[in-house]
């Protein structure tokens, strides 16, 4: 449904995307995960037809985004991270003008507006100015706007930004329903790992490259065994000592030393024998997406 082929983009001398390639199948929920500045927003702009990449090709529903931009725009619904509503218009007025931009009018538009407002539970606020709505209601109105013309592909940029946990949960229930009932393909960008975990497939975008790609389970499985996290007054020294003694490659991140290793419980016992008194705390867990994120980007996901 979506095919990104060798897309490179530069802003002046800075390379934001370096040869990104991936595919999204029909009816899939695909997540672009990555730290801020990793290239997610750039890729989103290209997919939503807002700009052309420096190099490479993007195809959505069989149509080239460069050559058939107008046709692509009919097929995609876009939910922006920043708001795109007119605050001085009401909810219904915003939807109506969006409908007009998509060539909808009359009873067809009215019926579809009812439908999306019902689904996003904003029907009772239809005559309120957007300016007077809470953040959560605005987001729902944004999504209603993106879905109004029944797109086959929904692109969402950090859609759950500013939503409280309950609203976020509702959004996800809705997204999953949309995929199951209507077969809509959904591509979303996120920096939230719990959100990434709900996607069918993920690509981790870091410094303009896709560093790893697969289902959340596949990605977790890529880290063999266990993850051991240590705290110490001098993490750099501890990391170096562990590497020298055990031949593993610990990562020093955010004041901790992290080691990926099979049979973590035995390793912990060996560690305490080898370096008594230098370890303040220790924890062991099965690999999570966060571990993968830290391994691939060297950053802690916030």
């Amino acid at each position: 449904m979506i095919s990104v082929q060798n897309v490179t983009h530069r802003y002046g001398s800075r390379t934001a995307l370096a040869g990104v390639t991936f595919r999204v199948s029909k009816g899939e929920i695909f997540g672009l995960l990555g730290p801020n500045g990793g290239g997610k927003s750039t890729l989103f702009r290209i997919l939503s037809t807002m700009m052309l990449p420096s190099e490479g090709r993007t195809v959505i529903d069989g149509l080239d985004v460069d050559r058939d931009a107008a046709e692509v725009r009919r097929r995609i619904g876009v939910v922006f991270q920043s708001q795109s509503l007119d605050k001085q218009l009401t909810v219904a007025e915003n939807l109506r003008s969006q409908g007009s931009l998509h060539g909808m009018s009359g009873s067809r538009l009215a019926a579809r507006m009812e439908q999306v407002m019902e689904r996003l539970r904003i029907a009772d606020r239809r005559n309120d100015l957007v300016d007077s709505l809470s953040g959560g209601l605005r987001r729902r109105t944004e999504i209603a706007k993106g879905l109004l013309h029944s797109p086959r592909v929904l692109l969402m940029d950090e859609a759950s930004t500013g939503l409280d946990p309950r609203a976020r949960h509702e959004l996800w229930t809705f997204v999953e329903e949309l995929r199951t009932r209507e077969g809509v393909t959904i591509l979303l960008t996120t920096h939230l790992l719990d959100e990434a975990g709900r996607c069918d497939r993920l690509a981790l975008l870091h410094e303009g490259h896709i560093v790893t790609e697969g289902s959340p389970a596949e990605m977790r499985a890529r880290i063999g065994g266990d993850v051991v996290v240590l705290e110490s007054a001098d993490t750099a020294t501890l990391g170096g000592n562990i590497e020298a003694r055990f031949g593993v490659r610990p990562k020093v991140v955010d004041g901790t030393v992290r080691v990926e290793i099979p049979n973590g419980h035995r390793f912990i016992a060996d560690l305490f024998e080898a370096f008594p008194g230098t370890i303040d705390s220790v924890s062991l867990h099965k690999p999570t997406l966060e571990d993968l994120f830290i391994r691939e980007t060297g950053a802690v996901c916030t």
Partner: protein
Amino acid sequence: MSFWLPVIALWKRELVRFWRQKSRILGVVASPLVFWLLIGSGFGDMGLFFPGSLVLTVMFSAIFSTITIIEDRREGFLLSMLVSPASRTSLVLGKVFGSATLAWIQGMIFLAFAPLAGVKAGAAGLLGAAASIFLIAFTLAGLGFLIAWKMNSTQGFHAVMNLALLPMWMVSGAIFPVAKAQVWVKWVMLANPLTYSLALLRGQLTPEAAAGSPPTQVSIGLTVLFGVVLLVASAKLANRKSTASAA
């Protein structure tokens, strides 16, 4: 895909937004009114400066309405226009027609002061003036769009207003007539779209003071020509594909 549906929707949006911010009307009509009262009283001839002040009202209004495209871009509304299948040309038309309509309404409010200026135009003259005001508003809205499209702040626009638009108005014949100007200023005046806007309004409202300014047919022709050229240029600009982000 209907071409006119988005045009009408965006035109309506401009009117609704304007209606909800009534302070804008006062701001745009008040300053030319003050100009007119001061300059007119100073020269002791209220009628002479009335058409020029009317042009100024329409210019302020048309330009300030089109620069809302900068806010549309900053606040994100433009995003949804740009990723919709509506043709960019229809977006330009919607914005320009919307702004022109607002400028026309404000011009008409200013026109209501005509009796105070001692303007003795009959019904035909007033009707002609109403039509001329729309034409002028449309041309200036086109100019405003062309300037505003690439700007990302309204501050920059104020510089353009002070360095280009106000001088344009000053050499339109509003303050001194074309006939009395030095040769080089005369050429500038003849190349200035506002000269013809002013001549058009003088011809309708104060024909007795129109001597020496370009004839009405020429003014209509050139104002329409300027309007069309600016609109086509705006549409071309908005239709350009780019590797820089659209918003």
